[in-house]
């Protein structure tokens, strides 16, 4: 098995966050986001930095997540929790596939159904994951700089249009907390690194690189929020299905540079590909741990077909999907990416202490 470096693993996480970060404005759909929301990623980032220390305590023990579950809770409970993780992973993959297909079908290919986009994505994901996570990691080394470069250029074009008076006053703590929780739902994808600990070479670099990665993602998200809220205003965002797309549509340099929004679609597709592949690989890794199957490659096709079958079942409209995201997947992400790993850490800590006391 070819291992990946910690830098590659963290680059995958940063690449994954782009797509949900752009979608993060769904927090506004419920009317609970306002002008102060641009500062929310800072709170989410600060919390994430604290959580990195918990993850570090788990990662330095050289056990992957399922081995941690087994160590902390024993075989039976760990199988139960593992199955819950697999079900959540399948549903998360399906909903991300749905977001990807819906975005493409409702922005550029409005005459075409979503099925064809799902079939293409499934095919590419299976092909890429056939040789393991290292292929995705190496691909992402090319994709992530492209995503960052194009986004930074787009945001730089938009920055002069920002109206700073739209961004103040910052007073609504309810809205801040609401949007920060939304941010945590995607920042928490960092926990997926724990699933692949045995496939990562230089684990000792996790703490430092993860903190830098989180700071970078936080600053990027703040810039994104400032640009979109500052350009459109919080009340218009509430009514738009894809606010970032709408903002980018405004960019034009005379007749020389127009319809730049096509770049955004490309970035979405690239980021969605990384996101869906990484979540699928993590879910299959955990499934392999539960069933003691070393090679889960043969399950790639049934796994993705199952996810593709679930895609139309997720919801009928964009607003139903936003509801699903806000009421179901964000809370589930917080439970599976923060609460359960923290409980695993606490149980493992006391078990270690008890073992130490016995040996003394």
């Amino acid at each position, binding site marked *: 098995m070819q291992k990946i470096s910690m830098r590659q693993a963290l680059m995958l996480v940063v690449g994954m966050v782009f797509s949900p970060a752009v979608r993060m404005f769904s927090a506004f759909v419920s009317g609970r986001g306002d002008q102060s929301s641009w500062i929310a990623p800072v709170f989410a980032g600060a919390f994430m930095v604290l959580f990195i220390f918990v993850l570090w305590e788990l990662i330095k023990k050289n056990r992957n997540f399922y081995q941690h579950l087994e160590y902390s809770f024993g075989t039976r409970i760990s199988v139960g929790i593992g199955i819950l993780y697999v079900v959540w992973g399948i549903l998360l993959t399906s909903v991300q596939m749905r977001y990807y297909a819906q975005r493409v079908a409702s922005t550029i290919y409005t005459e075409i159904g979503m099925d064809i986009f799902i079939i293409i994505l499934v095919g590419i994901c299976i092909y890429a994951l056939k040789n393991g996570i290292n292929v995705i990691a190496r691909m992402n080394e090319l994709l992530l700089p492209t995503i960052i470069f194009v986004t930074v250029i787009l945001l730089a074009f938009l920055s002069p249009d920002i109206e700073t008076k739209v961004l103040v006053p910052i007073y609504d703590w309810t809205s801040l907390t609401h949007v920060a929780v939304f941010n945590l739902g995607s920042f928490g994808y960092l926990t997926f690194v724990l699933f692949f600990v045995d496939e990562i070479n230089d684990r000792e670099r996790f703490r430092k690189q993860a903190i830098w990665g989180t700071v970078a993602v936080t600053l990027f998200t703040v810039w994104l929020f400032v640009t979109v809220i500052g350009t459109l205003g919080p009340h218009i965002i509430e009514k738009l299905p894809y606010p970032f797309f709408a903002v980018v549509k405004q960019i034009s340099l005379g007749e020389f540079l127009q319809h730049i929004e096509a770049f955004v679609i490309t970035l979405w597709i690239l980021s969605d590909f990384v996101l869906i592949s990484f979540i699928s690989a993590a879910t299959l890794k955990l499934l392999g741990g539960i069933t003691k199957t070393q090679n889960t490659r*043969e*399950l790639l096709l049934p796994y993705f077909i*199952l996810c593709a*079958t679930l895609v*139309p*079942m997720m*919801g*009928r409209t964009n607003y139903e999907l936003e509801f699903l995201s806000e009421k179901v997947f964000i809370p589930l992400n917080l439970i599976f990416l923060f609460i359960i790993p923290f409980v695993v850490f606490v149980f493992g800590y006391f078990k270690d202490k008890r073992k130490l006391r016995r040996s003394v």
Partner: protein
Amino acid sequence: MKFLFVFVLIWFVVKLMWLKNIQNKPLYIAFCVTTVFLGIINLLFEPSLADFLKRWM
């Protein structure tokens, strides 16, 4: 989606004929059965998870 479903059915039947190459047969069959079951529900009822949860929450 109907096209995909028919393709999946054919693929699973073909793959099941060579099951001896598969490391974890019960898991593979479980995936196939779940997919076919969900596919049939999907085609017959066109359900919506969000709509279902909205009624319960």
